């Protein structure tokens, strides 16, 4: 076949990839776009809930000697806020963007392992419910988002608050690992013909690198929380100093995961920024190779920084010196990227639509967060400011400024692709100014409060400390930012029906997702695109080069070589299935059971095994040969 598909063939292809209608289709879908969309909607809901918790805490701190929250409620609020934002919002939303975008940017119809993506979401949802359903019944973790022993150990953490937190992590980390393997395999083996390593879009690079980081860092937190549960449930002694255990061990393992996690969140954000800057500067990204190498450099350095979260623990001096140097070194590749983005804007013809505004807001805010990070990286300075509001200011500048602002920009940028409608620019700009202005008003004073000595995680303070006015400003700023967030969501809601029709390529983008209609059909592409540059849609202006020959009557994808993306073979792509949901339910039973009894690991494994057999049981004809052949 060397002709494009006829309309009849294209319709037949669409039928092959279509989900079943109704609830069954909802439960069985393996469409990466639907899975990503439910990830994103869940995240939006959680951001709202955890944002409300933040606002509640800010109200408590707005004036000195406030009594509207008890210390216990305050502890629960910041623990739930932090755990939700880190484990259930930041990492999952970046994965969701990968699940949605990577196949589209690679000109593919599916991810490498579609059912694994569905499983990943259901398990993630299990983690969400694990944390929030007990909260509804008054059982809420109350030891912060990292729950150090001995406070979280069997001696000081009775009840199940800690277990819920620890097992929520197991859920979300298994989900994240499943998503990461999926994305990495897709990027390595399912690139379109012509997309050599040198022609991979920066966003796809960022997700592949973040995926690899996930693979090598998340096992640490699963291991350490499992050890914590074991200490609590079956009296192992990992963190019991009296029996040869060590509480610092928990911190080492936690931060082996915890620091790379920051970059697992930041690198995809750098990917968003690179794509937005390129499109809205209307020129190819300045220093593509430098940006990608910077990402790899950040990924490597990220595994050598974890001890900077532990400067105050009392580790050997040489250790502190090394980690100070490594922490400062990471500013170099991060800074290099920023120079590349500025150079692209400088030498391009920038168009200041909302997505680019978010990028500018990101650069300004992230530079402040980066500089306070260089300050905190110095061990002697950190001794003074650790556990103060300076650190609270720093990590919110880095995480909100460095990751959430680019995410909101990305949301505005790809919203028309996902829905077929443009978001309102007027409401978008209003939301931008409210959020960025409110954020800076809310969090900049915290630097000063920290330097004045205000510790984090205090539920109130006395008037004599003199922290009242700045806290009031911080609360005011937070309220403005939350109002901006509501405007942002309202804009997305309203524009879905009333936004201007977007067409396939409203921004003049350079990458393959803009070659398909908005919203994309379930099979994404009728034909296999062929790539000849980093910006295929700009270099193939007249007609997109494509290949034909994938099956029309069934789901099939093209697998290509790792380095050169040379076509290798055609791979069957799995149909929708209920097995991922059943497997996730079985795993949920095992995880929840193992909070109460170690035997759950034994009996709980049986339904998991059954569900996995159903999942992987290949559908082929019965044997006509061998001792167990069908005898007719």
């Amino acid at each position, binding site marked *: *076949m060397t002709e*494009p*598909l006829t309309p009849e063939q*294209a319709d037949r292809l*669409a039928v092959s990839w279509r989900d079943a209608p109704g609830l069954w289709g909802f439960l069985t879908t393996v469409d990466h776009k639907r899975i990503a969309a439910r990830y994103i909607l869940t995240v939006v809901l959680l951001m709202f809930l955890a944002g409300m918790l933040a606002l509640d805490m800010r109200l408590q701190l707005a004036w000195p000697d406030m009594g509207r929250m008890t210390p216990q409620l305050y502890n629960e609020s910041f623990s739930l806020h932090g755990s939700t934002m880190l484990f259930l919002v930041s990492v999952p939303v970046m994965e969701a963007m990968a699940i949605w975008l990577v196949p589209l940017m690679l000109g593919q119809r599916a991810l*490498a392992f579609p059912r694994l993506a569905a499983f990943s979401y259901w398990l993630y949802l299990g983690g969400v419910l694990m944390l929030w359903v007990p909260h509804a019944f008054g059982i809420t973790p109350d030891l912060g988002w990292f729950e150090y022993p001995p406070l979280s150990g069997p001696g000081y953490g009775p009840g199940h608050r800690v277990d819920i937190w620890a097992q929520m992590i197991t859920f979300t980390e298994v989900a994240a*690992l499943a998503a990461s393997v999926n994305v*990495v*395999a897709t990027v*390595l*083996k*399912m690139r379109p*013909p012509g997309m050599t390593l040198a022609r991979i879009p920066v966003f796809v690079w960022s997700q592949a690198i973040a995926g690899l980081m996930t*693979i090598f860092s998340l*096992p640490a937190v699963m*291991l350490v929380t499992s050890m914590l549960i*074991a200490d609590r449930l*079956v*009296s*192992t*002694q*990992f963190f019991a100093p009296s*029996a*040869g*255990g*060590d509480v610092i*061990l928990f911190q*080492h*393992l936690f931060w*082996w995961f915890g620091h790379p996690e920051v970059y697992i969140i930041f690198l995809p954000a750098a990917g968003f920024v690179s794509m937005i800057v390129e499109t809205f500067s209307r020129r190819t990204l300045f220093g593509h190779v430098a940006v990608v190498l910077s990402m790899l450099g950040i990924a490597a350095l990220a595994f050598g920084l974890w001890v900077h979260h532990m400067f105050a623990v009392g580790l050997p001096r040489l250790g502190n010196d090394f980690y100070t140097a490594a922490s400062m070194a990471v500013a170099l590749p991060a800074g290099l990227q920023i120079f590349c983005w500025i150079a692209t804007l400088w030498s391009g013809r920038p168009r200041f639509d909302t997505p680019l505004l978010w990028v500018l807001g990101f650069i300004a805010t992230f530079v402040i967060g980066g500089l306070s990070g260089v300050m905190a990286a110095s061990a002697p300075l950190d001794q003074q400011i650790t556990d103060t509001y300076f650190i609270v200011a720093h990590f919110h500048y880095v995480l909100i400024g460095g990751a959430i602002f680019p995410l909101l920009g990305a949301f505005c940028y790809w919203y028309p692709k996902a829905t077929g409608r443009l978001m309102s620019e007027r409401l978008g700009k209003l939301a931008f100014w409210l959020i960025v202005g409110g954020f800076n008003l809310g969090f900049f004073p915290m630097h000063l409060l920290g330097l004045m000595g205000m510790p984090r995680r205090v539920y109130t303070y006395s008037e004599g400390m003199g922290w009242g006015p700045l806290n009031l400003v911080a609360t005011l700023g937070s309220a403005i930012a939350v109002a901006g967030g509501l405007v942002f969501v309202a804009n997305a809601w309203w524009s879905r029906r009333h936004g201007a029709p977007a*067409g396939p*390529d409203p921004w003049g983008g350079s990458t393959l997702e803009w*070659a*398909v209609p908005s919203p994309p059909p379930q099979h994404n*592409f*009728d*034909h296999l695109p062929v790539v000849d540059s980093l910006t295929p*849609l700009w270099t193939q202006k*007249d*007609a*997109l*080069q*494509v*290949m*034909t*020959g994938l099956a029309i009557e069934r789901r099939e994808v*093209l*697998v290509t*070589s*790792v380095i050169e993306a040379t*076509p290798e*073979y*055609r*791979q069957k792509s799995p149909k929708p299935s209920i097995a991922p949901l059943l497997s996730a339910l079985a795993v949920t039973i095992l995880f929840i059971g193992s909070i109460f009894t170690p035997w759950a690991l034994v009996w709980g494994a049986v339904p998991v095994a059954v569900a996995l057999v159903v999942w992987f049981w*290949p559908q*082929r004809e*019965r*044997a006509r*040969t061998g001792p*167990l052949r069908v005898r007719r």
Partner: protein
Amino acid sequence: MSDARPCKVVGDVSDLPESASGAKHLVWWGNIGFMAIEGTAFALAAGTYLYLMSQTQGWPPAGTRPPDLFWPAVLTLGLFLSEIPNLWVRRRAIAKDERGVRFGTLGMTILGLLLLIPRGIEFAHLNVHWSDNAYGSLTWMLIILHTSHLITDIGDTAVQAVWLFTHEVGDDQFADVEDNANYWTFVVLSWLPVGALIYLAPRLG
């Protein structure tokens, strides 16, 4: 038609095969990904063991005997020898030999179940309970971590054997058998550092 741009056909992939084996195969990479995750978990668990060992005076702690060596020696020898049939099954899978993979996976299932006997006895000869001290907790953690991998792969091989005997075997299933054999090799190799820590570190520490 759904593509939003005019297109020019420059090639066709209908002549390409419908399956592949080894590193060309997509699933091979998924398998590598999960080995990387589990390998990281093994490495971190080993690092944890060494960290606590370095923090403790005397290893094992006074009054605790190191684990006995006989049954783990039997298991280790068995695991090594199991690589001979395992690699044979792998070659049969690459050669797309239906009879070979059917009987090979059956044999590997039986062999795996037999290896669970010395593994089971090992638990009774660790000479420490997990709740005695951190050394005991670490010993049990490492051996349970490895045993869970052992059982998972034996279960997988058993299911594969049942399927292979009852169905017509296609190229994708040959690739699955190859991946499963690779995973068994991973389980065998991961035992070397883990077993060394459990059985040799207390004798050297």
